[in-house]
């Protein structure tokens, strides 16, 4: 695979916007796995859901390509669409869990507890990280996925999240704290019923938290 450069992405996106399906395929090859990985993190480690969601994201991207501003940062533009779709998917999952009476199990999953979660999935590090991320506020989680997960710069992430760079930094720092607390809580709950570390209490009292 040729080394990726941002200008290549923008050039390919311009060609794809003109209807070049080959350029679009090249973009899918370059960013397809990143979109899947990001959605997997956003959807609590659901790999198959992330694959389906990524497909829908690319369909949305293809539809939106005529409106892509030439020369604009393609990765930010792409992940703005992907994050939007991730939010929609998550809401859909929550709604489905409520309708099917599985609300308690889903709430446990969101809290990062082991209840309602496949133990074999938790056995892997990847699953544990995804599970701990579900306990992080959605806005913080998105910033974490972009900056710490995919290596976005703060400027690039701010474009994708459509907020100020300072806001992204703040969300990333608070998200790291929150994630760390959730991850440690999950570890302690699996090994022994140890008291919550002080960081968990602090993280759960963030004023910006939605839960």
């Amino acid at each position, binding site marked *: *695979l040729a080394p990726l450069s941002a200008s290549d992405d923008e050039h390919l996106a311009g060609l794809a916007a003109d209807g070049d*399906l080959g350029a*679009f*395929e090249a973009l*899918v*090859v*370059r*960013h*397809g*796995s*990143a979109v*899947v*990985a*990001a959605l997997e*993190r956003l959807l609590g480690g659901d790999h198959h859901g992330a*694959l389906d969601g*990524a*497909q*829908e994201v*690319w*369909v949305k991207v*293809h*539809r939106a390509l005529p409106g892509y501003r030439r020369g604009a940062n393609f990765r930010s533009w792409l992940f703005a669409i992907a994050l939007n779709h991730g939010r929609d998917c998550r809401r859909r999952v929550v709604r489905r869990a409520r309708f099917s009476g599985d609300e308690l199990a889903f709430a446990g999953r969101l809290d990062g507890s082991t209840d309602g979660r496949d133990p074999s999935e938790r056995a892997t*590090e990847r699953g544990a*990280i995804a599970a701990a991320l579900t306990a992080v506020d959605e806005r913080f989680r998105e910033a*974490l996925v972009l900056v*710490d*997960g*995919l*290596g976005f710069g703060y400027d690039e992430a701010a474009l994708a999240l459509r907020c100020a760079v300072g806001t992204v*930094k703040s969300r*990333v*720092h608070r998200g*790291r704290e929150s*994630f*760390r607390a959730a*991850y440690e809580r999950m570890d302690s709950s699996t090994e022994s019923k140890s008291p919550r570390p002080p960081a968990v209490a602090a993280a759960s009292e963030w004023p910006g938290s939605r839960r």
Partner: protein
Amino acid sequence: MNCDQARARMWVEIDGELGDGEAAALRAHWQSCADCAAELRARQGVVAKLRLAPQQAADPAHVAAVLAAVAGAGSAPARRPWWLALTHLAAAAVGAWIVSAALGAGEPRGSATELSAPVGRADLASAQVASVPAPEVTVIERERLWVPLAGSHRPPARPLSIPWPIPYEVRVPVEVRVEVPVPVAGPVPAAGPSAAQRQAAAALERSSLALAQVAEQLAELRRADDGSVGPEIVAAAAADEPDEPDDDQRQTAAPLAPGRTPPVTVQRDGRSLRLSTHGATDDVVPALIALLPSAEPALQDAVQRRLLGVARDLGLQPPRGEASSADRDPWYRSDQASATALPGAEVPEGPPSAAAWREWWNAAEPLR
């Protein structure tokens, strides 16, 4: 730097965004503080956990699935709702109606469509139909023309054999020339609106008779020719039975006696027009006046000239025409020139209207 200050700057240091001076102070602090050094390692571990593996090229199966989804329904432009087709159909119907109306307006007078127009007191029942070979005359069957804005839609005489509401037209390679004799019944009575409407209705009803004659003529031509006229046209026109006219209408528009030459005859040959009169002035002038309202501009000019000639011959002052508003300059003449214009300067007049001529003729009766 104490522990709180060091921990407050730790994330920024991990991001590599701390200034050189602060970074050096932070490093100096955690070298001396074991707790802060452990905290730094723990935080670096958190960031390492969150980091996703370096992204490789996407799985070919996933790329293929994405491209299939894009090429399928996903990439197709959003389908329009089915009811939008109705608006298109309605627009097409209105367009067809406008086009047919425009075609009807542009047709040469004297064709079969002319017969459905109100022609005043002309006696269409005794219309003489002559046919000469000529190119391109359009025959539109008005009975089947659906006019959405007109309140008085006459249902067709027999069930429609074509899909509603599309009108159709047939182009016949012959010209049908209709000579309309105008009856004369003394001075033209000043008719009220209702009487005028009755007259128009009666003229329309009688027009179907003439239409039937045209249809017969067309049928003969079709039999003689290769049959370019559809049989349904002739059948429909022939089956269109005229209603019985009211008695009073029969009196006012009585057919001429056989063998009597009509007082006014209009003959058309292509674009040329010939207006011939026959008989006494008392017969000719009302017939000319009756022709005025419905005549085309060229015929109106001819009739006006003939009436002016009659007035000159009789030594009578013709009626004053209406000031033609088209010739006026609303800015100059009304505001400035009205104050400065010479007293003798007259606003140009248009030709007198049919009503003016009728008044003139009725008023001039004692003088004649």
